[in-house]
């Protein structure tokens, strides 16, 4: 059975069994902490492993992720041409030149339909999906609608064996909604700034919600323009 990894050495070392296809990861973090860099690593790893990767760009145009991957010497044109890398533009409603564009950001049903259509069209045996960030799509919506959407969508993703990473920007959604939502994911990765204002330290917690408790290990990390996310080797603290 194929197992998947994030593509971040210090993080993957802690996932003895890796991730199974059909599981969902919730990434929640402060603005600028490195969520999109992590998404890039996840996609890079997927492409190297032969997966088909779908990236939904909600906060910036898809070109930003293309350039990000190119800066890490990932030739996106080759993967896009062969259908191994697919972008959904959920940022620019009008004037987008992308093949897949979300025409109305206010309707979760339309998003769900588009996402399902794109995932169905993926040829490869294994698919990774990254939504960056899902919280942008969920702002100003009824909490019950959001939870219904989550349940239906995640159930569908699990059923079809999609390895999904949903990104949430801290502070955008109500804390209650984040708490309820986090129960629906297999893995939760929280990224935050700690330390003093003059000397901020990036930190990530990876774990699961079990019996209302978030069981996690904590790791300090940095973001390198050459190597991406670098997790400090021996700073894991098991709570």
């Amino acid at each position, binding site marked *: 059975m194929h197992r998947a990894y994030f593509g971040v*050495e210090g993080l993957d070392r802690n996932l003895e069994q890796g991730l199974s296809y059909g599981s969902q990861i919730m990434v929640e973090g402060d603005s600028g902490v490195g969520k999109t860099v992590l998404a890039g690593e996840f996609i890079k*790893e997927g492409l190297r492993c032969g997966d088909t990767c779908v990236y939904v760009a909600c906060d910036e145009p898809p070109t930003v992720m293309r350039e990000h991957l190119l800066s890490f010497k990932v*030739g996106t044109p080759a993967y896009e041409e*062969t259908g191994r890398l697919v972008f959904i533009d959920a940022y620019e409603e009008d004037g987008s030149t992308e093949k897949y564009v979300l025409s109305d950001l206010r309707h979760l049903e339309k998003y769900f339909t588009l996402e399902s259509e794109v995932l169905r069209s993926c040829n490869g045996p294994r698919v990774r999906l990254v939504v960056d960030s899902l919280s942008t799509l969920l702002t100003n919506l009824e909490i019950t609608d959001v939870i219904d959407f989550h349940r239906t969508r995640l159930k569908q993703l699990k059923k079809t064996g999609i390895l999904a990473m949903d990104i949430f920007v801290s502070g955008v959604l109500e804390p209650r909604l984040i708490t309820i939502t986090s129960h629906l994911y297999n893995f939760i990765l929280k990224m935050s700034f700690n330390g003093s204002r003059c000397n901020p330290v990036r930190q990530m917690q990876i774990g699961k919600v079990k019996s209302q408790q978030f069981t996690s290990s904590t790791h300090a990390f940095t973001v390198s323009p*050459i190597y991406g996310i670098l997790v400090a080797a021996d700073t894991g603290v098991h709570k």
Partner: protein
Amino acid sequence: MKDSDITIKLMNYMFMSMSNTMNQVPFSGQHWMEQLVIGSVQYFIDEYWDDSKLDSKKPVEICRTYLNVMEDVGFLYAKDYRLEESGDSLLMSVKTNKCVYRECCQRTGEKEGLSFKNCIRLGTFQAILRHVLGENNYLTSVDMAADGFCYGKLRPNTQPKEEIVTREGHIIKMAGHRAFLLRQKTYASLMASIRDHAPQILKHVLYDAGYQSGLSLARKARESYPYPKECLQLLLDELTNLGVGKLELVSFSLSCARVKIRCYDSFWADTANEYGHLYRTPQVICDMLRGILAACLSVIFEKEIICEEMVCQSMGADCCEFLALPLPQESSGGRKPHDPRNE
């Protein structure tokens, strides 16, 4: 001289055997095969050649005179060979069934599946040109065409081929630079050590090392082979001779700068299969070759090309397959990959 002449047959057998043996010589077999041909022709030149018969020292005239001398001794008919100048190159054509070396070429090239593409006739021209003009080196290429003719080309070359390995006492040199041989096991342990101490750098180190070595290789080739496809084919042949695997050009589009290349028995895939995988999950692993190819194609197309390994033999595929495309023009932000034009 009759075709059935046993002397012709024996000569062809001898060249076939030499070709077969040189095919087993690592790295520089083709070079040494050329040297064997040139060396044997030199004995003929020493005995029968007379510089005073030359009307001019133009390469085409030297080769014509050489053919006439060969006709005088009854070895061939000079009129069977057509010679003409094309810039500083010399073009030769001959009906294949008129060439005394055809049996050697056909059997070594086709039936026995050897990789030599040497034309012995062109080798004899190399010998006489070197004798008359001094140290001038000529590169040869030949196409045994479907129309029943062989089309050969000689062109001047000032650069040593990257693959030529020589020994001077205990010093081994490759293309004039000191080199040493590394066993696959040693390479595997070196990579495993990098992975254990600095796993995040492994892919980058391999890609960048490949890119830098590919740049120097490609620049030398480009000086001698100005035509992009021909230059790429030469580079793929040289890389194959260097032991990276058997490289095959699958498709080549000059207008789109789009190239697909396959590699059979990749060194890196074989190393993974033999000594263990470097990564947690099965994935493409020929980053060094990816870097080499990206650099070669960037030099050939004179723009930044990025190359991806789409499938890898280490993952169970029949071969590794690389797809190279230009860097998108709109790309402006972030840290760009290395641009060979900036050096």
